[in-house]
């Protein structure tokens, strides 16, 4: 009674589904199952839809369908003024919004030739690196939740609460920060905040070995993660992947090191790279990045006292400020990869065009190729190791 409605493989049968599913099913082989890892799924991080052609448990073809979360940020950039667009940047990526803030503000400052005071740069580095820690913790917890371990996410959120409390003090928000301004930052870090950061760093350093003991060394996790999702450097090259995805395959590219912006060339930190090319490599890269972020934080907090200037430049742009005509590109390293903003201005009240380059979009495009021939459980593991934030993919 139900075989025709469950298996839809032959072209003569009424092919159900929408445009994408029908188009996908035309290329199907015999006796395969077409599954929708649909927009509502516990472990696609957001509204991502992946159409899978599955033979038993092996995936033959995969096709991500995007656009379920398209909110037209780039169009809003054309309608809002320069100053008003900053809250938009807080919402593009809820994992690491300060990186997006920085990319936009950096592009506008480059366009207008504005120089940011040194203290503001230090504050930017400190808040952005704290946000990177929070983003990696969220990724770690969510990845393990996909793999079936229900407790590490709560331990990660416990640490994250401390970071969010620290970041609440200068920015006022806990998740979607829009505290960068053109020419500096919104509020200065007061004594108490700096002391909280100084106290936080050794506490978190002690937690990292616990994460290693509970999860990273666990044999079940290692079997789920080692050798899964081989992404050779050729694949990275072709799809333009960046961030821990590229560094997990041996390509040593970090925007903070290769194209230094702001004051990153003053800090001494390593760029962790693994050449196992699999999900385990990406996992270890991110865990090591958390330790390196702590190093940067220590150096930045020490340098904050000697920094000159205020938290925002003198005569900072007001909400009705107009940028001069021209275009500028600024790239920043976020928790997911290389974030870029290309700003085109024609001298009027609003930008002419803002193009947002999102790393998750490029990382996700490689999924179709990487997921061929793997099991469904592995597909979940690969998606998690790519660290996708779907609002960033769809903007």
């Amino acid at each position, binding site marked *: 009674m139900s075989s025709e409605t469950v298996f839809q493989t032959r072209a003569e049968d009424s092919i159900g589904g929408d445009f994408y599913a029908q188009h996908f099913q035309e290329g199907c082989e015999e006796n395969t199952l077409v599954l929708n890892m649909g927009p509502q799924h516990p472990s696609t991080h957001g509204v991502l839809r992946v159409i899978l052609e599955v033979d038993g448990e092996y995936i033959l073809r995969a096709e991500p369908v995007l656009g379920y979360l398209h909110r037209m940020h780039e169009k809003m950039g054309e309608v809002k003024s320069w100053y008003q667009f900053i809250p938009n940047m807080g919402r593009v990526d809820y994992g690491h919004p300060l990186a997006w803030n920085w990319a936009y503000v950096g592009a506008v400052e480059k366009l207008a030739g504005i120089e940011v005071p040194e203290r503001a740069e230090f504050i930017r580095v400190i808040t952005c690196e704290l946000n990177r820690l929070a983003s990696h913790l969220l990724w770690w917890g969510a990845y393990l939740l996909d793999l079936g371990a229900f407790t590490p996410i709560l331990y990660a959120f416990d640490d994250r609460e401390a970071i969010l409390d620290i970041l609440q003090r200068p920015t*006022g928000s806990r998740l979607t920060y829009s505290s960068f301004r053109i020419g500096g930052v919104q509020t200065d870090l007061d004594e108490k905040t700096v002391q909280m950061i100084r106290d936080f760093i050794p506490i978190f350093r002690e937690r990292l070995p616990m994460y290693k003991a*509970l999860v990273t060394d666990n044999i079940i996790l290692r079997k789920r993660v080692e050798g899964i999702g081989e992404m050779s450097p050729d694949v990275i090259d072709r799809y333009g992947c960046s961030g821990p995805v590229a560094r997990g395959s041996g390509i040593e590219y970090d925007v903070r090191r290769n194209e230094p912006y702001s004051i990153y060339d003053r800090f001494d930190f390593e760029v962790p790279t693994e050449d196992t090319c699999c999900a385990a490599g990406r996992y270890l890269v991110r865990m090591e990045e958390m330790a390196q972020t702590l190093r940067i934080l220590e150096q930045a907090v020490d340098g904050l006292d000697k920094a000159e200037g205020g938290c925002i430049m003198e005569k900072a742009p007001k*909400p009705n400020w107009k940028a001069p005509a021209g275009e500028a590109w600024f790239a920043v390293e976020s928790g997911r990869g290389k974030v870029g903003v290309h700003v085109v201005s024609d001298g009027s009240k609003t930008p002419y065009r803002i193009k947002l380059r999102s790393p998750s979009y490029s990382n996700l495009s490689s999924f179709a190729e990487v997921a061929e021939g793997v099991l469904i459980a592995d597909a979940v593991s690969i998606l998690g190791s790519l660290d996708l934030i779907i609002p960033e993919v769809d903007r």
Partner: protein
Amino acid sequence: METIRRNILQPIKDLWSLFVGLKVTGKFFAMKQVTVHYPRQVIEDENLKSYAGHIELVGKPKSPSIPKCISCQMCATSCPSGCIKVTRQKAPKPTPEQQKAMDEAKAKGEKVKKPTAPKNPAGFMLDYSLCSLCGTCVEVCPVKSLRFSNDIYLVGRSRDDFKFDLLERLRSQAEPGCPVSEKKQQARMTDGNHG
């Protein structure tokens, strides 16, 4: 032999990692909870001070139920989401003395001085369901008449509950010894719509 080490010793080492994992979770089982158990416990005020909740008006130091606002509309025009609506006060009708002075000035051919409206606003509505908490309005106000509140226990049953009348809020805050939230709750309960 290498195969023996790989097939027997390595699995034993791997299985040991399972016990280590159990030990970690067992240790956490015995630790104190980190949950702040609302409503038996609440977040302490020190943490809340820096939280940016919805905006509220700042009263004048000498008359706290009148806001410092001068109805310049800077906040309303700068807002990226268009959620603030400020209504100016209309000029009051002239009193009989002022009317007599105006008539005299008109008769003499001098400039007629009309009574001017006071600067503070007649109405100040915030549609919080559109607000993105960017802080532009707070920064741009020339008289520093706006600030963030820090009510994290904000609750409403419909969208209309989040259209705040900030003047009313300021007035209730200015009344001595009356906490704002209690006032608001009383107002909600007596409101026929959401009883």
